[in-house]
Structure formats: structure tokens, C-alpha cells
């Protein structure tokens, strides 16, 4: 039991990231409101970013701005942080584009609910 708790504490960031990922996936899969789907995707993105950044963490590490006066410092791994900078920009772009699509859908159908939109579409097809 004790070993399990130590293991848990040693991987707590990763587990939190997975929990966020699953919550985001649940939001995307179950909510039919398109805006909520986009929010779910954002939660999933945050989860992956948390996971990635946690890989670079080092106990007692400093942020990777080299201190020229003190050469003995320990720094965290800078690679994951710089990769996630890219990821965040991508996330912003995707959110902006999906929001613009949702605006157009709302204007066309008068609702943001995917189920209602699909029902409207099938009615048109049957006529």
C-alpha cells in the first residue's frame, strides 16, 4: 500500500493529465452543443500540454534562463516547454477557426445543437 502511494505521488502530474484528457473526451463525446465540444477539445489540449511539460520537470530545477554568475544551478529540461509553445499557438488557431464555423452554423440553422441540426437535415432529405 505504501509503495503504491509513493508511486502515485511520483506520477501525480501524469495521472492528473490523464484525468483531464478523459474529462475532455467525455465532454466531446456526450455533449451535443457544438460550443461545449470545442471547450472539451480545449480541455484535452490542456491535458496533453500538462503531460508534455511535466516530462521536463526536475526537482529543485530553475527555469531555463542561464544565470551567467552561478554556473552550478540545475535547470529543468527546456525542450518540452519550447515544444508546447508551438502546441499552444496551434490550439488557439484551431479554436478560432472552429468558433467561426460555429457562428456560421448558428446563422444557418438557428441552433448550436448538433442533434437538432442533424434532425433538421434529415427532414430536408426526406422531403
Amino acid at each position, binding site marked *: 500500500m505504501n509503495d503504491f502511494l509513493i508511486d502515485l505521488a511520483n506520477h501525480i502530474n501524469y495521472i492528473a493529465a490523464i484525468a483531464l*484528457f478523459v474529462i475532455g473526451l467525455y465532454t466531446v463525446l456526450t455533449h451535443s452543443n457544438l460550443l461545449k465540444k470545442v471547450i472539451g*477539445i480545449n480541455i484535452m489540449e490542456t491535458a496533453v500540454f500538462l503531460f508534455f511539460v511535466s516530462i521536463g520537470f526536475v526537482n529543485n530545477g530553475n527555469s531555463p534562463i542561464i544565470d551567467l554568475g552561478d554556473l552550478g544551478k540545475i535547470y529543468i529540461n527546456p525542450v*518540452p516547454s519550447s515544444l508546447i509553445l*508551438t502546441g499552444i499557438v496551434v490550439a488557439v488557431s484551431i479554436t478560432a477557426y472552429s468558433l467561426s464555423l460555429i457562428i456560421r452554423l448558428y446563422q444557418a440553422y438557428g441552433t448550436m445543437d448538433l442533434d437538432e441540426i442533424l434532425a433538421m437535415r434529415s427532414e430536408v432529405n426526406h422531403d
Partner: protein
Amino acid sequence: MIKHIPVLVQVSLLALAVLLPLLKKNKAAKSKLLTILLLAVSVAFLLISLIDVQQNGAFVYNFGNYESFIGIQYSINAFSTFMSFFVITLALIIMIFSTKDIDHEIAQSSISQYYTLVLILLFSMVGMIYTNDLFNMYVFMEILSLTSCAIISIKSKKENYLAALRYLVLNTIGSLSVLFGIALLYMVSGHLNMTMMNQSISMIWQLYPTNILIASGFMLTGFAIKAAVFPLHIWLPDAHSNAPTPSSALLSSLVVKIYVFAVYKLLFDVLGRNIIISLGIPTVITVFAAAGMLFGSIFAIGQKDIKRMLAYSSVAQIGYIFLGLSLMTEAGLAAGLFHVVSHGLMKTALFLSAGSIIYYRNKRDIRDLDGIGIEMPVTMVVFAIAALGMIGIPGTNGFMSKLYLSFAVLGAGQPLLLGVILLSSYLNAVYYLPIIISAFLKEPKSKNVTMQVEVLPFPMLFSLITIGFLCLLTGFYPTLVMNFITQAVNLFLS
């Protein structure tokens, strides 16, 4: 200077893409002209690069002259040079077709934007083919998924917005799965360069088998969503059938295939063949591929809209490619890559001829196509060539890829899969043959139609004839393509 050709071609695509929005007068015409010119020049340069690699051997291109474990790397070899040449050539043919067709499909003011998006799409596809760095591949993949949704939604109809949004949501989930997988692989290997990753993973994979298994599971799921492998194909029919015709051709024949290349790179360049087999991944892929081959065709039979039928047919054809991949033998991998090329050509021919029918007669319903072969002989001959290829009639490139695949299946000792291939071919015949028969043999509904060559605009006729010719050429001389693919497969398996 030859070693810079891939980068320069790629960067010039981007440079032109950002130039187009700034043009002042005659935006649409100028965009079309500049795009076609640049693509033609790129094809010539990529051919030089292809010949150079054949003569002087493969090499790696390090950005900023940093060593491979520090910077980003392009690997320029027989696979990447040939496939980028193929992609840009096919894109050139589709773009020549689009110059006339696109006027009918989208608003005049967004034509220039359309070409901007297509150029960025090509930029990212070429990048994904060349790159030897996993995170770099992710960045290009995101550009690709944004642009491929944007070239659907540019046709301002509400169906397109919905199709694009669903495609975007699934695409993003796929990208996130891939990023999660990259994180897991980076966690144990500490590298992002594919060659270095392969080295360190082959040393440490027994220490962290769960990491590798979960990472490959996430990444394969992500790529499977994007490549429309059978149960995850739900976005594809809407997206490919509602898009403007040139976009449908690009998406169906090229974009989906790029993710197949990504799977090849992941499985063989990053993880390595032995690890894949000992994790039991090939069996899973085989099951989904075989299911896709059958169900994709079955769904296609029930469709009435011609573009929707072609979209479902893509699902089945993706199954063939993954079936070849899952055999893990040299012949299987070669058959898969050959089908990438031949399906790219056939699907382009089918979508372009379907687009011509819609352009010329405004008919989308399969039941309205009686006698269309008499009204539009050239279009329907091209359609027939490609459709017969899909069924697998000897003399077409589709027949050759099915032949290679059948030999590979028998060589791998799985005769049951041969039955699946034959059954799927039979199902293809069930939905393609009636169209050809009714187009050429049935009486047209409207009388007083005389046999004459249709008056399509010259660019559309030109690209239809070119693509039909290429289909026949690769059918009669498959070694033209197979020569390069054998080299590529040897690279993957070495």
C-alpha cells in the same frame, strides 16, 4: 545547390501563398496563373532532385547545420523524393482542372483565398513527406488539418460548414492523440529525431514496454482517424462529397495518403519492425483493414450521389493500403505503397470526371446518368478507365496493385485474406459497373442527342486526358513506379 531543392520548393510554395492575398487587380486570374506556374516549376525541380538521389544516393539535410540530435532534419531519399514528386505532379493536374471548375463552385471573391489555402496544404504535405523529426511532423500535420478543413468550408453552404466542423473536431482529437504518443515516446527516448529515437528505443524498449505500447496505440489511433480507417471514417463521406471538386480530389487522393506515409514512418523509422511484431500490432491493423475493405464497399453500394459513392469507395481502398502494410513483409509494404500511387491516380480521375459531369450537366444522382457517355464521351471514357481499375480489370493500374497485394498475401501465408480481396473486388464491380453500363448503353432520357465531343473548357479536358493516360501508363508499365517503391521499402526495412 541541388541539395537545397526540397527546402526551396517547399519555402517557395509558402512564399507564394502569403503573396496571393496582397495582389491588387485581377486577383483570381493572377492567383490561378501564379499557382500553376509555380507548381510546374516545382515539378521540374523535384524531378531533378529525384534523378540526383537516384544517381548520387540519399542524404540528410540538417537545418542550421546542427547535428542530427540537436536540430531538425530532412531525410532526402528515394521514398521522399519520389512521393513528393508524385504529390506535386498530381496537385498540378488537379489545379489545372480547378482553374475553370472553381469559378462555378465558390464565390469570385474567395478564389484567391482558395489558392492560398491549397498552396499551404501542399507546403505541409511536402514537409510531412520529407521530415525526419517527429515533432516537426506534428506541426505540419496541424497545418494540414486546418487547411484541409478550410478548403471544404470555403464553399459557403451550410452543409459544408457542418462537414468541415465535424472533420475539424475529429482531426483535432486525432492530432492530440498523436501528440500524446509523441510525449510518451519522448519520455523514454529523450529524442525527437526519428533515427535517434529508433536507436534509443531499440535499446530500452524492454524496460518500458507499456510506454511503447500505449504510445503506438495513441499514435495509430490518431493517424487512423485522419486516414479514415474503417470504424473511424465517419467524417469522410460528408467532407469529401460536399467539398468543391478540386478539393475532393486533393483530399481523397493525396491528404489521406499523407497520413499513410506518416504511419509507415512511425512504424518502421521510429519503432522498428521487430518491436511492432512483438507488440502484436499487425494483427489489429489487419482486422480493421479487412473490415474496411468490405464495409466501405457495402456502404458505397447504397449511395445515390456520385461524389458520396466515391467517398465511401475511398474507405474501402484505404483498407487495401493498410492490409498491405499489416503483412510486414517486403512484398506487402511495396503493394501498399503501390496502391497509394495507383489509388491516387484513379480517385483523381474519378472525382475530376464526376466534377465534369456536375459542371456540364449539373447531375449528381447516379440514376440520372443514363446515356451520359454519348453526351460526354471523353469524360466517361476516363471515368470508365478509372472505374475498371477500381474493379481490377487487367491493363489498368488498379489491377496491378491488386495483383501485387494478392501475391504479398499468399507470400505471407494468409490465403483467407485473398478471399477478402476478391470479395471486395466483386463488391466494387457491383457499384461501378452499372454506372458504366447505363452511361454507354442506355438510351439518354432527352432525345435528339448526337454523339460529339463535349465542349468542356480546355484546361478541364487537358487534365482529364492526362490523368486517364497516367492511369493506363502505370497499368501497362507498373515497373515505372515499382522501381522507386522497392527502393523505398528497402529503406523502411533496413
